[in-house]
């Protein structure tokens, strides 16, 4: 779960990192009032995505009127897939240097990774690509933590023009915030050194580990919910992963890997998947609801049902599906591929109830669904 800047920065402050004063507002008038309190300020669009500056979502303002005018322009603006609904009015900082600092879950060392670069301000992909030699990293044993000594080792040989102690201290506090908040990623970019030598977090990106939400419920309330379509939101509330796509061939399968592959094979045969809908893991008993979900999308032309039982049992999934069939009466052609745990029973149920047989394999089922979609066009 991603957090917007205004919700991420207080987490840094709680761990003792300096952040500029700021006020969150939803209207241009309020932006003017906030600027009157803060003086010279920056108007910053609050959306859970990067590249806000390039999109024109961050503007400097010297007066309250200027802040109000910028807020008027920025509110309602589209950045990426997001519409700006709120802006952060932040006191202007005296920037002498811009650095980069982050802690993230590293799949290679299988532990936290602390990262620092003197090349702040640009995104990490650019830093890694353009000045990899300036990117300093330290793999942490999560049982032991990240000490001031570790921070000093990480920064050794880097000239920070007198800000060494402040930066090292900030890295230790950043690691603390990362741990306390079950972060997947906690990034300060830029981490600035001001004219008077203070080390301040000017922007912050925080991603909460989705698997930790159940023990971080209070924190998660401040996160930016993923932008979902109506159908996707329905799926989420029922515990089914449903992603709406542009095509007309519906996909219903169990397990993430199998569902992705079903989409791939539909594409391979020249079709376009209408959705990703998987009922693997504990969701395998929800086939009935899943059928209702996939059929609810307008403009669909065919459906491929691909069950390959491992943990999920084909017979249980088929039972749910057939239970919904009567009520939903799909008016598009449906093609089945069935294998794995409980497959014989599922195939028998399909024959008994609908007098249908599965296709010999998933490729055949996907091809038949693509052909049906094209034929009906």
């Amino acid at each position: 779960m991603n957090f917007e800047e205004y919700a991420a920065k207080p987490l840094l402050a709680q761990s003792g990192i300096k952040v500029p004063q700021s006020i969150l507002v939803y209207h241009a008038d309020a932006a003017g009032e906030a600027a009157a309190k803060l003086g010279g300020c920056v108007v910053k669009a609050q959306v859970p995505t990067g590249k806000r500056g390039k999109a024109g979502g961050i503007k400097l303002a010297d007066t309250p009127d200027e802040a109000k005018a910028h807020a008027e322009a920025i509110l309602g603006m589209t950045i990426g897939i997001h519409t700006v609904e709120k802006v952060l009015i932040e006191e202007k900082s005296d920037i002498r240097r811009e650095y980069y600092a982050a802690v993230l879950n590293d799949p290679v060392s299988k532990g936290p990774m602390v990262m620092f670069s003197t090349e702040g301000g640009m995104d990490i992909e650019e830093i890694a690509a353009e000045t990899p030699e300036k990117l300093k990293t330290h793999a942490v044993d999560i049982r032991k933590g990240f000490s001031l000594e570790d921070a000093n080792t990480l920064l050794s040989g880097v000239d920070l023009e007198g800000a060494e102690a402040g930066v090292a201290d900030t890295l230790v506090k950043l690691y603390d915030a990362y741990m306390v908040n079950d972060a997947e990623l906690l990034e300060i970019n830029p981490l600035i050194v001001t004219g008077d030598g203070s080390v301040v977090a000017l922007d912050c990106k925080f991603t909460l580990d989705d698997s930790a939400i159940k023990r971080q419920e209070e924190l998660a309330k401040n996160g930016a919910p993923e932008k979902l379509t109506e159908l996707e939101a329905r799926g989420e509330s029922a515990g089914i992963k449903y992603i709406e796509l542009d095509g007309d061939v519906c996909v219903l399968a169990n397990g993430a890997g199998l569902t992705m592959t079903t989409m791939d094979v539909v594409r391979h045969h020249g079709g376009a998947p209408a959705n990703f809908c998987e009922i693997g893991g504990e969701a395998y008993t929800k086939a009935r609801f899943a059928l209702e979900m996939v059929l609810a999308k307008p403009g669909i032309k065919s459906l491929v049902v691909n069950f390959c039982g491992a943990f999920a049992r084909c017979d249980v999934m088929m039972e749910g599906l057939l239970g919904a069939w009567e009520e939903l009466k799909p008016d598009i052609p449906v093609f089945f591929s069935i294998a794995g745990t409980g497959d014989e029973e599922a195939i028998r149920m399909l024959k008994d109830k609908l007098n249908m047989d599965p296709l010999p394999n998933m490729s055949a089922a996907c091809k038949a669904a693509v052909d049906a979609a094209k034929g009906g066009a």
Partner: protein
Amino acid sequence: MIIPRKETRILVQGITGKQGTFWTERMQEYGATVVGGVNPKKAGTEHCGVPVHASAVDAQKDTGFDATLLFIPPLGVKAAALDAIEGGAKMILCLTEHVPVHDVMYVMAAAKEAGTRVVGPNTAGGVTVGETFMGFMPAFNERIFKKGTVGVLSRSGSLGTLMCQNIVTAGYGQTAFVGIGGDPVIGTTTRDALEALDNFPGTEAVVMVGEIGGAMEEDAAEYAKTMKKPVIAFIAGGAAPPGKKMGHAGAIVMGDKGTYASKKTALEAAGVNVLSTPVHVGDALNEAFK
């Protein structure tokens, strides 16, 4: 140890639950050497014909288990795995999905120090065909698993199952299946599993089932280059839109990282035959064994 053998002494933590019970029975029917279970509330009783212990540490004294299988809810995994490590587990196989990543990393650090192999989390388990299995795989289904010479590894259980079925349909069989799991931080990587299968007796070819996201397939390609046996791969998610998590927490394309194209290019450069659909595995094996 990544691939358990018939004589591997298996402990089941969370044996008394519904899934723990169902799959322990399947494992026993298949011939797995299940030596005990763990549930602190039912210590001293018997379940599935084996003694239930209060902890893995306790179980070690009576059973001398080698490997442990975790049927444990997400927030209990850290404590259960640390118990297993303290109890001298050589291998921990964790099926649980949605384990907080900080907990996984804690377990990984402790496991590394103790020399314990972790497989998963968020895996469907592994099958050593004709010998044993751990997890929830349809090992007993003869249209999916048949003794043969192909080693199979997969991030996804369902897709791995489908690939195994296609291998049997094409007239081949497997030595072992290794499910490594769909989470972003996992104990056993694609490369680790590839190496284990390469060295497993009787394996003459390896089929690797990957997914978009991360860089594990690219890393495994480095090892594949050094192999004499043919390697065949399928990468799921070529049609997935970027920036969306496709069910598995690890399966997400960010920018140009973790893309289908990057994985395909790296694998092909290593001489791996990358399939356009799983059904083509039969043709690829015919070609490899020609």
